[in-house]
């Protein structure tokens, strides 16, 4: 703590150093192995979320490569069909639940408090709890694959295929319990983010001054809040069907297989946008910074984000066009599905107009964003096509759809995520990522991606269905599949370079400045990496780009009078962000970890016996009570 850091440069005297040292001690996380389990600071938890998600991404990516290897030639025998189906199921599930959502949440957890000028999130301990839940659930889920007991019913687990009768063994049980468990983590993060954004914004940051990224995270969190419950209900029903012989999905006993599809897709469709909405926020941040001008159409972008969130709840039936629903009912969803093109179009053109004629710096994050444009627009256009009932009845469940959603998800979410990694890495680590490796990574990923997934459109139209472990030589799909496999390898090399870059630059990268890109938002107003307390003094803002307007105003406004000997952060009003009260945040504690372990015992046990419901419930409850029980000496004002 000898370096006072720029945050307190105005008081770079003995007293200033002393004050900052006290605050930093207050906000410090314990060191050592056991200390690791007590961390609650959002920067620690956010970093862990992102790192874990990236590891899961790599694993799921390797599974994707395995599938591509198997499919590179007709009647290939790299994987036997059962293994292939397990690999396919785990690839899809892991990419969705273990990588995409947690990675976005992790970035949000890391950045949102910094961006809104808060010192931490509203419920730091809940945050830590969510992480352990995610880690435990994810590891157990992935372990099922090497043990050979992984689920093999596809990531959307259609009943009756996933019933006990047609999927005996533990696979689907592991899916239902662990996915529900991981969703608990997603829900805690969503609650946490909503409350943090609502109540902990820096004074002056009224709703119309929030960075677009924060708006995107807010929309994402609300979507999680309303979408996840339906898949939790669905998987709980499936769990009970398998465990205690309920009849929710059994047609002979009054149940309905279509109920599962409705519940699953009512979650499943928003899920795609849950992944994609924060990516839009990342794109906006990058576009603004590298065009060096305020975003065009702030209000329009907010409108677009919120309407993407809302409309996404009205599209789920377009996953069920082929299930024999009445035609008029389906036709309602045709227009609704195509409607998502309006907010997407508005956003794309707002970005184009922001970039129009600007002096753009083509740094690596900007290059990722440019590849995002090309790939995402293609995916969006095929998305409008599959909104059409007759066309969808031909391409549904074929490789055309595989191509479409990889264009949307990889192009629309992973490329922006990569842009985000390159953009915010200097802030989080304090060093720049290698530029050369970054450029190679963008180029290889872009070429590899298109080579891997573009031919799949053609394959789908030639009749290749999804989720097949092999195909006959007479089908003539061999060449395009080979092409796709080559592309997948190039794509993997591209992403792999970024992974290596992340590790390499942590030690060898050039040291990053406080604000290396000259960005306008608050996360760049503190040291790189941020102080334990984020901001020595919480900022007060007058517009949505404080770092550009402070120099113009010639002064930087801050909050004074927060105590240094305990963790305090400002609470402001929801809409106008007027100062309202001060929240005292809790310090390091192991209880979230203990609670997560207790809850995971309950969930894991459910695979074997329904009684673990009670064990987990009461186990978690007891630890919660310990967690919340006020400790003496009670807080005094």
């Amino acid at each position, binding site marked *: 703590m000898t370096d006072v850091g720029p945050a307190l440069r105005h008081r770079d005297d003995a007293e200033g150093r002393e004050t900052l040292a006290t605050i930093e001690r207050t906000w410090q996380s314990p060191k050592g192995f056991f200390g690791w389990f007590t961390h609650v600071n959002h920067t620690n938890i956010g970093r862990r979320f992102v790192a874990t998600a990236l590891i899961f991404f790599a694993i799921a990516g390797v599974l994707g490569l395995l599938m591509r290897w198997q499919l590179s030639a007709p009647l290939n025998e790299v994987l036997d069909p059962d293994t292939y189906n397990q690999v396919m199921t785990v690839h899809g599930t892991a990419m969705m639940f273990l990588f995409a959502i947690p990675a976005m949440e992790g970035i949000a957890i890391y950045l949102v408090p910094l961006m809104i000028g808060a010192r931490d999130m509203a419920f730091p301990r809940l945050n830590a709890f969510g992480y352990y839940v995610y880690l435990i659930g994810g590891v157990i889920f992935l372990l099922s694959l090497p043990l050979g007991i992984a689920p093999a019913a596809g990531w959307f687990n259609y009943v009756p295929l996933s019933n006990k009768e047609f999927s005996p063994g533990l696979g689907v049980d592991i899916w239902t319990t662990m996915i529900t468990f991981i969703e608990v983590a997603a829900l805690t993060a969503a609650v946490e983010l909503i409350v943090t954004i609502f109540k902990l914004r820096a004074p002056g940051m009224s709703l119309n001054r929030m960075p677009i990224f924060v708006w995107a995270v807010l929309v994402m969190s609300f979507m999680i809040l309303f979408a996840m419950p339906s898949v939790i209900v669905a998987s709980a029903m499936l769990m009970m069907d398998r465990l205690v012989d309920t009849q929710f999905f059994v047609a002979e006993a009054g149940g309905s297989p279509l109920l599962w599809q409705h519940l699953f897709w009512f979650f499943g469709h928003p899920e795609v946008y849950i992944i994609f909405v924060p990516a839009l926020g990342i794109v906006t941040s990058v576009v603004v910074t590298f065009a060096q001008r305020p975003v065009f159409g702030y209000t329009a972008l907010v409108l677009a984000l919120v309407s993407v969130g809302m409309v996404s709840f009205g599209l789920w039936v377009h996953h069920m066009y082929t*299930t*024999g629903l009445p035609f008029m009912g389906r036709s309602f969803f045709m227009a609704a599905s195509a409607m998502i093109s309006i907010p997407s179009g508005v956003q794309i053109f707002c970005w184009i107009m922001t970039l129009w004629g600007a002096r753009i710096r083509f740094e690596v994050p900007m290059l990722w964003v440019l590849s995002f444009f090309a790939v995402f627009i293609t995916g969006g256009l095929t998305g409008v096509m599959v909104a059409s009932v007759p066309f969808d009845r031909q391409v549904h469940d074929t490789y055309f759809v595989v191509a479409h959603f990889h264009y949307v998800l990889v192009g629309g979410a992973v490329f922006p995520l990569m842009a985000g990694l390159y953009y915010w890495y200097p802030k989080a680590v304090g060093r720049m990522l290698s530029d050369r490796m970054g450029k190679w990574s963008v180029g290889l990923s872009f070429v590899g991606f298109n080579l891997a997934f573009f031919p799949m459109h053609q394959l789908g139209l030639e009749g290749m269905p999804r989720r097949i472990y092999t195909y006959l030589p007479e089908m003539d799909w061999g060449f*395009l599949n080979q092409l796709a496999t080559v592309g997948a390898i190039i794509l993997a090399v591209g992403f792999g370079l970024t992974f290596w870059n992340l590790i390499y630059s942590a030690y060898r990268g050039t040291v990053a400045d406080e604000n290396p890109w000259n960005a306008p938002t608050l996360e760049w107003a503190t040291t790189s990496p941020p102080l334990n307390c984020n901001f020595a003094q919480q900022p007060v803002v007058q517009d949505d780009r404080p770092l550009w307007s402070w120099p113009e105003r010639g002064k930087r406004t801050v909050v004074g009078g927060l105590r240094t000997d305990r963790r305090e952060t400002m609470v402001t009003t929801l809409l106008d962000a007027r100062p309202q009260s001060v929240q005292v945040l809790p310090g390091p504690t192991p209880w979230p970890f203990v609670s997560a372990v207790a809850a995971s015992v309950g969930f894991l046990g459910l695979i074997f016996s329904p009684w673990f419901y009670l064990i987990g419930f009461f186990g978690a409850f007891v630890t919660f009570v310990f967690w919340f029980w006020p400790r003496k000496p009670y807080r005094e004002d």
Partner: protein
Amino acid sequence: MEMQKVTSATGLGTRGLLLFVVLLVSGCSGVQSVLDPAAPDARLIARLSWWMFASGTFVLIVTLGMLLVAVNLQRGGDRIDVSFRTSAIIVAIGGVAAPVIAIIAVGVSGVLIGDQAEGAEDVGLTVEVHGNRWWWEFRYLDEAGEVTAVTANELHLPVGERAHLLLKSDDVIHSFWVPNLQGKTDLIPGVTNSLYTEPEVAGTWRAQCAEYCGIQHALMAALVVAEPREAFDAWLAQQAAPAVVTEHPGLDVFLDYECGECHAIRGTAADGQKGPDLTHLASRETLAAATLPNTPGNLGGWITSTHKVKPGALMPPTAPEQQELFALIEYLGMLE
């Protein structure tokens, strides 16, 4: 296929956009292809597809073109500030007006074409399609709804007549899809769905299960044969009749090894219902759900090493003595 020559000629280094164009312009003639329609419904959808590909490509080029202009406009020069009004107009045209046109176009064309392509008028023949793990059964119904003939993995239809397929499943969800003829519809336990189709020309196409249904989903297919009415009638009469040979050493082998527990050969003691009806096995072109050509060698291989051909298939492999196997193959080969 023609398309492959074109793509390989341009080489692997082809850039995305070029590839896009190349792939699109090369129609291909497959037995399982959306872009090679052989029925009015599929033709309508194929035409719609081409329209959508063309307009999609146009939109992609325009939007990316604008982006390229935007980012290249001022490389190194001074920055240009576009007025709020101009920007707003461009956003309104590109982001609102164009999508609205697209929505209306997609919506109206989808409704009209979709409705027509699912049309249920002038239905002649009715066939029950049963999805099983992992093979198809077709039961031909007469006017009264009685089953006249049962066959497996080979659907025959008269040319130029609209057939009504009743889709049923007793195990998991499957989806019946003949890309050349019609879009797919799912077979869902507890529900009977309908699909209407009308081949325009005589020919053979491939039907594929399109909804993931377990370990052998990949190789769950069937042949769809469209033939003129007379040929079809003859075929149906033949399929409706009991087995042509009911006394043969091979049949004894069949019964000894309990094949009759699952398979039926009408006119003999074999009356199992779990597996495909084999009464006229020799009349079919393929074995194992359109996976192998129907030759004596393949039949023997399928009987003895079922799980090498299709791991996880529900038929247990049988290992008769060589003599018995030959008799069995010979007998099954006589079941015209």
